């Protein structure tokens, strides 16, 4: 449903009926989202996901597979007119990731931007993001890891080429989380994210219109369709 809501808001903005929006959300039940160009069966242990009740969702954005733990991460999305961020995709990743880095700074966690679309702490990824631009609308969504469940992360099957590029044996060598550095409640992290993203200016950050909800319900059907999830 989360991807459907992002898409419904982006459509609404394109059609002039939705405002620029920042969303913060979690996934319940837990889910693995894969990039729109990835192969679900190659990237995800889909049988174990089914056994554990973990959804597998194909995003409309590129990028890699992500495990979204109900309690272990916050997902953000920024939906705004494309003109707000300019034409350069790399620059806009750097800009928005910079706001997330500021948010981590508010929590006392020094982090760095790792091009193209990641934020790292001590060389390990704590936040990743993915961006699309359609119909004059910019959408970037990304995650911030609050905690790390190694067992659930093993639902992901990163390519050996990807692991060896970072001298990693498994996902646990690639990732870190806020709570690896300090205790922090979800609300505390949300506050920090809101502060970090404040330079975006006036953005709706809560609530959806009835029309957005209705369109999201409609779009959710296509996200739930195995023909979409497993088409690659």
């Amino acid at each position: 449903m989360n991807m459907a809501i992002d898409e419904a808001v982006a459509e609404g903005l394109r059609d002039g009926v939705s405002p620029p929006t920042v969303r913060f959300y979690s996934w319940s039940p837990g889910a693995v989202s894969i990039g729109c160009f990835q192969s679900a069966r190659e990237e995800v242990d889909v049988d174990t996901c089914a056994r554990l009740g973990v959804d597998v969702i194909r995003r409309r954005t590129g990028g890699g597979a992500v495990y979204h733990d109900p309690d272990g991460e916050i997902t953000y999305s920024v939906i705004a007119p494309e003109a707000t961020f300019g034409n350069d995709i790399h620059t806009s990743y750097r800009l928005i990731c910079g706001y997330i880095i500021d948010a981590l700074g508010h929590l006392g966690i020094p982090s760095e931007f790792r091009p193209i679309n990641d934020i790292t702490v001590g060389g390990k990824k704590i936040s990743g993001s993915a961006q699309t631009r359609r119909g004059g609308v910019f959408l970037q969504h990304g995650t911030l890891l609050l905690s790390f469940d190694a067992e659930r992360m093993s639902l992901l099957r990163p390519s050996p080429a990807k692991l060896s590029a970072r001298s990693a044996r498994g996902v646990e060598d690639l990732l870190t989380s806020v709570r690896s550095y300090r205790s922090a409640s979800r609300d505390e992290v949300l506050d920090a994210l809101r502060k970090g993203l404040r330079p975006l200016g006036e953005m709706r950050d809560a609530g959806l219109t009835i029309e957005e909800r209705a369109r999201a319900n409609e779009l959710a059907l296509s996200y739930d369709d195995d023909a979409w999830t497993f088409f690659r």
Partner: protein
Amino acid sequence: MGEGVRRAERKVPGGKLVQMTAGGGKVRLTGDFFLHPEDSLPGLEAFLASIHSDDAASAIAAYAERNGIRMIGLGPEDIAALLAEVQP
């Protein structure tokens, strides 16, 4: 794609993972890269199935230019290198 499928992959330095499978006259690209617009991929794959790996990088770059495709985390030369690996 079934029998006769050939596969290659590369992690682009400073970029993304790109995998290519080819067989039965089709080419499929997968990975954690970004293409804008996203729905340009099927057309790109059909184009790749129609060209030979000789001088493929410039042909892919020209195709992307003609069709307004932006590649993030990979480039025409990466796709061309994979094409050279999977073409018989």
